[in-house]
């Protein structure tokens, strides 16, 4: 993927986001006026979003010659599957709790990433999850997520 393409996509996202947020910050709850400039909650965000809008336009409209001409090869399939596994892991943690979700994630994620042998990954998952639980729950007294389904 060409870097300049990513720049233009980013510029487009920034433009839309800054425009929408500028509409939001211009709403009555922020009540920006010249009289209360400086103490108004919308004052700084408005400045930042305006700068953002300008930067987005620069990224979108600047000539090709000024954009980066380098490109990056991305394996989108691997990227999507790994991102999907990570999202599933995070959702699983919030639903069934840290320990069961982490055991499954740490056992299967390395296998998906190409780690062999399989049993090594299973041992890694079990040992690492136990170690993380002991270190954080017992030693550091950090309460790890228990999961909304399991209370």
């Amino acid at each position, binding site marked *: 993927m060409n870097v300049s393409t990513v720049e233009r996509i980013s510029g487009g996202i920034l433009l839309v986001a800054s425009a929408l947020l500028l509409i939001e910050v211009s709403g009555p709850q922020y009540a920006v006026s010249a009289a209360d400039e400086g103490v*108004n909650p919308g004052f700084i965000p408005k400045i930042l979003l305006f700068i953002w809008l300008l930067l987005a336009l620069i990224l979108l409209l600047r000539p090709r010659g000024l954009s980066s001409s380098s490109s990056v*090869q*991305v394996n989108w399939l691997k990227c999507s599957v*790994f991102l999907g596994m*990570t999202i599933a892991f995070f959702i699983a943690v919030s639903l069934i709790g840290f320990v069961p979700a982490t055991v499954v994630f740490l056992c299967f994620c390395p296998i998906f990433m190409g780690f062999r042998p399989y049993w090594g*990954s299973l041992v890694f998952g079990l040992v690492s999850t136990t170690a993380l639980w002991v270190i954080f729950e017992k030693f550091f007294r950090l309460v790890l997520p228990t999961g909304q389904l399991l209370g």
Partner: protein
Amino acid sequence: MEHLLPALQDVLSPVSLVALVGGVFYGVLVGAMPGLGSVIAVTLVLPITYSMELVPSVVLVLAVYASSIYGGSITAVLINTPGTPNSAATCLDGYPMTQRGEAHLALGWVTVSSAIGGMFSIFVLLIAAEPLASIALSFGTPETFALICLAMASIISVTRDSVVKGLASAVLGLFLATIGLDPMTGDMRFDFGYFPLTAGINLIAVLMGVFAIGEVLYQFAVPEATNGKLQVASGGFRFPPLKMWLERKITLIKACLIGSFVGILPGTGGAMAAFITYAETRRAGKFRDNLGKGEPEGLIATEASNNAVTGGALVPTLALGIPGDVITAVMMSALLIQGVTPGVRMLTDNPEILYVAFVALGFANIAILVVGAMTSRLWTRVLTVPRPLLYSLIIAFALIGAYGARQNLFDMYVALLAGGIGFLMRLGKFPTVPLVIGMVLGPMFETTLRQSIILNHGGFLNFIVEHPVADILIILAIGFMLLPIFQSPNGRLRQILAKLNFVGAKSRGPSSNSSE
């Protein structure tokens, strides 16, 4: 100074020494864990201090504070994941050294620079604590705002590819910091009726996402990110040759001075010191052309300065009761647990505490050098762990780090989103560090600007005109922003100026790198 010897005696008691050594081991360990860092390290040690005497508890907390900052740099060097924003700039040169197979040497530079920076700050502060405190006190909100602008500009100026991208990243960070409660009026901003957003975006969650999840995703999905580049270092710790130190001595001295001074300013921290020093090194360093490619001068600049902050930050924290950053704020609570309220009264009621703190920090820095040299072989072994196992573990750590700071499930999803954004930013070669620094400095940026305007009766530019120190800092900030345009040999503005015969087209001046 009459309190120095009794303080030395207190710190060298058996209980305090155990607290010191244990604190350094623990601090390096937690600081080195991707996704944890200084704040969690110091916070988690607080319950232990409940049952301790005053001096050992101060020693323990300070040892954890100094060593966790150093520990964060280890992961910055080895896996390009800083434990804290303080170590973010260390990635710029530490990780390229690791990619060249010089992890042991990079750890040597980092360890020794950290110890020298920390020791220097104590030496300076023992002599100049009171004058420095009075200078810091004379900084009003306009000067602090101008200093933040300088810090932001210096951060953007170190981005190699594009000032526009650096600025966009910094503005994103500043904007994220505005989400949630308005710090001055208490009004809600950008919560869109969704309750978890009312508490704002958690910085640690963003750190976990951008630096841990984003990095893992990038390394896994982009073959060239790791293709044959990462080599496992054979040795653990190598003391950098004295000749190389002498060649970079000016940067070392500058880093120590900048770190000590920045640390003493209320509300600043190691990240600001590291980036200002890095930018200064990029401007005037002897080996500036190699910065970002694995140049030890970059490591000296960032590590000596962010550790020099530790001593400086203690002055406003202990003498004025104003914490320099989040970590010193947590440290203040450790003193409150012991019934000591930091501030002017502490200097009259418990003057020895100030000296105990300085002596403890001095010994902690010596211990960092010893522990760092002894255990660095262990840290370089991080690289020998098969990558699939390491990446999976980093994701699990990132989840814990994001969740642990506020025990909030929403922060996990913030980290996940930040990971995706961090990945896209890497693809588009947007620098990620300005985003994080923007978030760190965002609340102070907003508060100081608005306070300055209010104090000057609503005049936007009045406070700039009436404050010469702020003027100088703002001019320096503008200079830093323009610097990359002029320094880039192929910069558009430089090409135009070259056509007009204002500057040479490709020359870098007489002080270019000797290695050229």
